[in-house]
């Protein structure tokens, strides 16, 4: 009896500590309750036992009142603190309480591939009437641990994400659904193999066509780290969870332009509010699908009612995803039926047939294609949009006929004929040749086409020269001390040398016009979707002015240019992330333009090239609206690559964070110009996260090449030639389409 009371008192003390931690110093309602409780706890055995029970009940009632009061005034930064508190439930608690049994894969505890990521095969049960059914699922998620330092607070290392991918593939082989649990402040930003950015990109690329139902639950969703296991059919979010593009501390450091040191607390709180990172905000923005309610001030590890609710929601979510692939009628019937956490009215088999898998992937594509679309700023006219739609449809039909109908029947005929001819060439040649000639005549193919060999491309006669060259002075190459480079005369450097030091090959930055004008055939560049413009979906304070300024300075509406062009006569579709507009950061407008461009490349069966002048990552002012561009664009990339397109990415200057960890990093062919810096997080963020300084050449292209991130280092002076060569060799005679 006394022991039980003592335990209860300990729980109350824990709760008091929790409230104090979350609400901070300014929360006056708690007064000196904690001190009183602590004193009570220490003198527990000196107080007469008959009084203890009533005292505890009093304290419990007061604490409950305080808890409700604390809940009322809960602000976004306090929610961030809740998700990080050691008393909050973790994935292991979920595995214990939501699932009936589980087996950890890839190690448990400290003996692990990566203790920050847990993969487990688990059984989840449901009761229908008197029957109990078990489902097998794969559970993958971050484990923060209750104060276990070796788990790095749930920051998955690159090999941790690689492990997650491995078990996703295993679940796919076995045909069981995957439940993802996201508890991460962000990915561990180191570049060791397989590389933070690369692995996230690979995960996204693979998850976009995972043929099993996937559900994710977000408690702490830190940007890229969350996305690495977050591209799912249904996204649930804890009521006291946060999902954000950057931690409020990180945003505050950027906003205050701090080089080092801690940002002031007021600014951090302001950022937490401005980033719209709570569950309610995210639901409104459409980046998540559903909120799982939590008790006041968030669920802790002993809130069993919450786990019951979570179990029910996870089963229901999986059911819905599965049923959507079957028939709308079944789905509706299910949605209308009365389900309770204790008793389901239906048993749904979670195994999918081949047809259903296709529908599942299609549904997923549609879901992400629609996400954040409401925020796109585009001039709308009724006739214009109809005309545009008509033109698109016409184009799509024309290309379909040209490539699929004509070409495939042509190919089938050719293949059949080749087989036949090779098998019985001696016998049939006198007969076959005339027929072939007649066929070729009808189809209109010349008997012998000249195959153009690589290396024939000429550089354009009227070469564009950067306005930087219009200065009569010299500059010093930054590597002069190391390589003894002579001073460079600016008109030479930016003219003839294409901004490259002729001695050591250092690449000076050039404006984006240089590439647009010198890479492609003269007059062939035609931009499209220029009118899509970056907006301010979160109403982030001060951001609208910044956008306006960027627009005036650059004459662009977003950081991404999309255009059709020709290179040596080969027609291509290309996009370019431009440094001049908000450091080439990606938001809703950029994501949408990217997807539209790659869709055009897919419809018109052209190669797709992404030039990265510079990218600073996802634009923090657009919050999760920007983050979901990562899965959105990666899905479009997957769709394009799977249908046979040739996708080439070329990096220049500085390329970091989100885009590199998604739609750029997932390209099968990535090249970088010399002197590029490439990676996931910059040196400062790495130092702040890991406590280890990184060498100055950590993000250099040479190292990126060694880590297998890129396929080659190119020289700017030969860029046009190299690109042409790549299109011809990698595309082959059919250029790119299978």
């Amino acid at each position: 009896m006394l022991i039980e009371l003592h335990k209860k008192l300990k729980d109350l003390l824990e709760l008091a500590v929790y409230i104090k931690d979350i609400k901070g110093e300014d929360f006056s309602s708690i007064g000196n309750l904690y001190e009183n409780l602590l004193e009570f706890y220490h003198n527990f055995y000196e107080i007469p036992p008959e009084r203890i029970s009533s005292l505890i009940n009093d304290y419990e009632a007061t604490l409950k009142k305080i808890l409700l009061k604390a809940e009322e005034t809960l602000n976004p930064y306090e929610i961030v603190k809740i998700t990080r508190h050691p008393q909050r439930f973790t994935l292991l608690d979920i595995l214990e309480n939501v699932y009936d049994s589980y087996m950890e894969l890839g190690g448990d505890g400290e003996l692990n591939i990566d203790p920050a990521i847990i993969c487990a095969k688990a059984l989840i049960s449901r009761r229908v009437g008197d029957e109990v059914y078990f489902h097998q699922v794969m559970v993958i998620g971050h484990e923060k641990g209750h104060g276990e330092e070796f788990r790095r607070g749930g920051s998955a290392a690159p090999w941790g994400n690689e492990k997650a991918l491995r078990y996703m593939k295993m679940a796919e082989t076995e045909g069981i659904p995957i439940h993802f649990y996201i508890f991460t402040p962000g990915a561990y930003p180191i570049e060791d193999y397989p590389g933070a950015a690369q692995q996230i990109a690979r995960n996204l690329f693979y998850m976009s066509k995972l043929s099993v139902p996937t559900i994710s639950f977000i408690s702490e969703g830190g940007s890229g780290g969350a996305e690495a296991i977050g591209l799912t059919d249904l996204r649930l979010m804890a009521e006291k969870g946060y999902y954000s593009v950057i931690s409020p501390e990180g945003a505050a450091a950027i906003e205050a332009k701090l080089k080092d040191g801690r940002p002031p607390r007021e600014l951090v709180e302001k950022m937490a509010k401005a980033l719209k990172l709570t569950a309610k905000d995210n639901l409104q923005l459409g980046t998540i699908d559903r909120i799982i309610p939590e008790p006041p001030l968030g669920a802790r590890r002993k809130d069993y009612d919450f786990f019951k609710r979570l179990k029910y929601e996870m089963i229901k979510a999986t059911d819905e995803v599965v049923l959507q692939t079957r028939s709308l009628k079944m789905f509706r019937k299910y949605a209308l039926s009365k389900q309770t956490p204790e008793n389901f009215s239906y048993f749904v088999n979670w195994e999918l047939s081949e047809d259903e898998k296709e529908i599942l992937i299609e549904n997923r594509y549609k879901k992400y294609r629609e996400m954040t679309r409401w925020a796109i700023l585009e001039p709308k006219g009724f006739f214009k949009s109809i005309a545009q739609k008509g033109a698109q449809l016409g184009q799509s039909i024309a290309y379909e006929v040209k490539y699929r109908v004509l070409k495939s029947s042509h190919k089938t005929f050719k293949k059949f004929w080749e087989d036949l001819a090779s098998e019985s060439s001696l016998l049939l040649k006198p007969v076959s040749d005339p027929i072939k000639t007649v066929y070729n005549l009808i189809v209109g193919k010349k008997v012998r086409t000249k195959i153009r060999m690589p290396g024939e491309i000429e550089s354009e006669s009227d070469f564009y020269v950067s306005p930087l060259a219009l200065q009569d002075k010299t500059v010093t190459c930054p590597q002069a001390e190391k390589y003894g480079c002579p001073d460079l005369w600016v008109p030479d450097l930016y003219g003839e040398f294409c901004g490259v030091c002729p001695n050591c090959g250092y690449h000076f930055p050039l404006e984006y016009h240089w590439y647009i004008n010198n890479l492609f055939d003269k007059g062939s560049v035609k931009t499209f979707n220029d009118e899509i413009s970056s907006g301010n979906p979160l109403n982030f304070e001060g951001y609208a002015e910044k956008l306006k300024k960027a627009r005036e300075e650059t004459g662009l509406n977003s950081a991404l240019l999309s255009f059709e062009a020709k290179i040596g006569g080969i027609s291509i579709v290309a996009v370019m992330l431009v440094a001049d507009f908000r450091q080439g950061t990606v938001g809703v407008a950029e994501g949408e333009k990217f997807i539209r461009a790659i869709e055009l490349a897919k419809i018109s069966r052209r190669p797709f090239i992404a030039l990265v002048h510079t990218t600073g990552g996802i634009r923090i002012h657009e919050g999760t609206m920007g983050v979901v561009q990562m899965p959105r664009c990666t899905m479009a990339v997957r769709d394009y690559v799977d249908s046979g397109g040739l996708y080439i990415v070329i990096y220049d200057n500085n390329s970091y964070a989100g885009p590199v960890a998604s739609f750029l990093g997932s390209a099968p062919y990535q090249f970088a110009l010399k002197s590029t810096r490439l990676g996931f997080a910059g040196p400062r963020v790495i130092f702040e996260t890991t406590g280890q300084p990184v060498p100055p050449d950590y993000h250099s292209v040479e190292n990126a090449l060694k880590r297998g991130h890129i396929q080659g280092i190119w020289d700017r002076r030969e860029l046009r030639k190299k690109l042409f060569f790549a299109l011809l060799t990698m595309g082959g005679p059919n250029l790119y389409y299978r």
Partner: protein
Amino acid sequence: MKIDFTQLTQFLQRFKAKPYKIYPIFTPHTGKIIEFKVKEGDEVKGPSGKWLEKPGTPLFVLEREKNPKLIRAHYDGLAQNVRIELLNRFVEAGELVLEIRHPLTQDEIISEILLNALLVIRAPETARYILSSELGKRLEKEGLGKVIVKEGDELLIMTFMKRETPIFLKEKGQYIIYQIYFKPFELVQAGEPLLGLCPVEDLPHLEKIIQRIKDEWSL
């Protein structure tokens, strides 16, 4: 070979009179010195940091064709003989602008002395080096300053692109392995010291000198 102790004593006296090394700083090319960043007697620092990523102290600015070039220090020490009269004047390449007086530490002096006194085996080619297996075993067992080698003994193995060449001791007499300057399998540039050998009969004397330096230079 015997150690020339009279020369060594002279050497030591020179160090005692001037316990520093002077690095002259010349202009790398013609131009105008538009600014001095240091004054006479200022402390300057060479590149620092784990990867020498922090550049040294700025010394002066040399301008040619509107390109102001900052010249930085490569050594720690004090700036002296700063030729302030060169300010705003056109200078030729190779003109002395200032000197950096680099105070020598005890270890630096000992290593200087040793390089002069010992029979130094230098790397004949840019390659990787390891101790010969017998010598390696003996050194492990007996320790540095105890192993005696004689003419014709195999000292080192030079390995480069999997091609191995043994290096033998060519000098007459008996020597003690006194100093090892390289790390196994690390690339050593041609001409860099590999081993320092001391004639057996000179060892007590040399050790006495080293001890004296240690006593006298309590910097």
